[in-house]
């Protein structure tokens, strides 16, 4: 890789491995300086690898990157509902607005703008509609301050999704809007998502009979995948079937072997939705939003500015250590909601608890 090449941090790579390698970088450069046959290191590079500077940069970025790492792990689970995308991102925006005091205000504003712009660039209005259909993320709806996500607010994206779904069919559009209003009224008035709620698609199958038109849409919309992690994971299997030491197999045989090995394994996990458990990251994000909403309400009552707490810096650093230098990556874990939950179970302390303490 040349110096001008793009350097990527994959979100599931916390900065700790970088920090642990930093000392080695400094030693190499110092030894090189005293070596008459050493290579040239520009001063700018020397300054950038300077341990104190990089360490302080990493310390500032670490809490934010750690949250992004957990979000990525949650979204890569097979049964992760589509609603998790905007739910997690809106919780992240709330966290940026009310926490991370070590980050300058300008940086936080910039990152909030980037979140909005990224979702607008790569997303689809239906992704936002999915947020409205997940009762677990009702608080994230409430925390929405009407900010523009691209060219529209979240409510604007929701309405655009309904328009797209309905097309020219006015009766269908009215039925969806009527059902959506009834559903939101029900969810906002009832504590129907306390405890450990099921997968939102399951929730709609169990409790959505009162809104029949929306139920048909919601059960399908919430079952959609929010990442292409499945595609990426399958490449790991290809690496087993066709390797550098076994690379003369015909394409047709490679494809069949690849398909058989991967699909046989997946057939054992077809009930991913039934066994779905909400990842701890999602619970933490909702906890974050709950704290922010409560703080804003308290601030409004006291006539002061809303207060918030920074997300805890504690957590495991056992993330997947892979750089995303091209598109041909494999996933660090074999995925699935359960696997994602196991990863989360390794964390040291509940961050929500720490947040509440803050």
């Amino acid at each position, binding site marked *: 890789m040349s110096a001008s090449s793009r350097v990527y941090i994959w979100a599931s790579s916390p900065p700790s491995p970088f920090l642990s390698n930093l000392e080695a970088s400094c030693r190499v450069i110092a030894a090189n300086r005293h070596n008459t046959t050493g290579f040239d290191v520009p001063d700018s590079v020397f300054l950038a690898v300077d341990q104190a500077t990089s360490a302080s940069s990493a310390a500032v970025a670490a809490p934010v990157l750690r949250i992004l790492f957990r979000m990525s792990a949650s979204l890569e689970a097979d049964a992760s509902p589509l609603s998790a995308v905007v739910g997690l991102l809106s919780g992240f925006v709330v966290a940026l607005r009310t926490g991370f005091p070590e980050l300058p205000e300008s940086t936080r504003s910039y990152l909030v703008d980037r979140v909005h712009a990224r979702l607008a660039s790569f997303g689809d209005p239906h992704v936002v509609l999915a947020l409205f259909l997940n009762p677990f993320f009702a608080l994230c709806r409430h925390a929405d301050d009407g900010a523009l996500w691209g060219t529209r607010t979240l409510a604007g994206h929701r309405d655009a999704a309904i328009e797209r779904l309905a097309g020219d069919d006015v009766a269908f559009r009215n039925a969806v809007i009527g059902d959506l209003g009834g559903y939101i009224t029900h969810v906002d008035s009832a504590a129907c998502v306390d405890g450990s709620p099921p997968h939102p698609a399951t929730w709609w199958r169990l409790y959505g009979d009162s809104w029949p038109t929306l139920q048909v849409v919601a059960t399908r919309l919430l079952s959609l995948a929010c990442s292409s992690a499945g595609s990426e994971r399958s490449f790991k299997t290809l690496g087993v079937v066709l390797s550098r030491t076994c690379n003369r197999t015909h394409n047709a045989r490679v494809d069949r072997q690849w398909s058989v090995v991967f699909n046989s394994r*997946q057939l054992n996990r077809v009930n991913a939705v039934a066994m779905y458990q909400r990842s701890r990251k999602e619970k933490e994000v909702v906890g974050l939003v709950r704290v922010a909403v409560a703080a804003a309400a308290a601030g409004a009552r006291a006539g002061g500015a809303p207060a918030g707490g920074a997300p805890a810096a504690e957590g495991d650093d056992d993330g997947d250590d892979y750089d995303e230098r091209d598109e041909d990556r494999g996933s660090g874990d074999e995925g699935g909601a359960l696997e994602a939950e196991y990863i989360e179970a390794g964390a040291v302390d509940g961050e929500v608890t720490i947040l509440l303490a803050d």
Partner: protein
Amino acid sequence: MFDNPRWRAFFLNISGGRFSGPGDCRAVGGSLLQSVFDRVFAQVLAVVAAHHGRTLTCDGITDANPRGAYNVIACAPVPFIMSVFRLGVSLSTAENLLNGLVFSLPQPLTEPQPVSALLRGRAIPSARLDALLGSPFWATVTDNASNMVLMRNKAVESGLCIMAYGCFSHVVNLLAEDVSKQSGLHLGIKSAVTVFE
């Protein structure tokens, strides 16, 4: 000694067309693989066909040879490999990718789903809902390379799916890059990579 047309014809004859001599040993045993593939794929098709709200994803890789291959995955919501296609010397344009994807899909998945079975007898008066439920796939998800973005938008236009969006795991990755750039961490990592390369 065996590397000549007469011996190859002999080997092909006695092996039922699966082995032609030196350099072709990997074709032996193919009949068993085919039967296993057929059995597993029939189960996969049954699972995917029974799931409503399917997602289609597609991604490319350069294999060990190195040649490009694209997998076509149907998420129900557990991902299954539906097909693999290669573009060979053709450019990986959006048109070529979409054609490769559509032609490689098994036919049962490209046909509209029977709507009456999906509604379980409920009377929902909507022609539009019929069209939505009949769509072979509800969403196409790819990474955010420009040709993939164009391809997934064309998939919506062609009626293969209702909506298309980018992989949000990649989006979170881009956000992590934004964070690292803002904090100065990006410069440190880039410099470290420069030194060690």
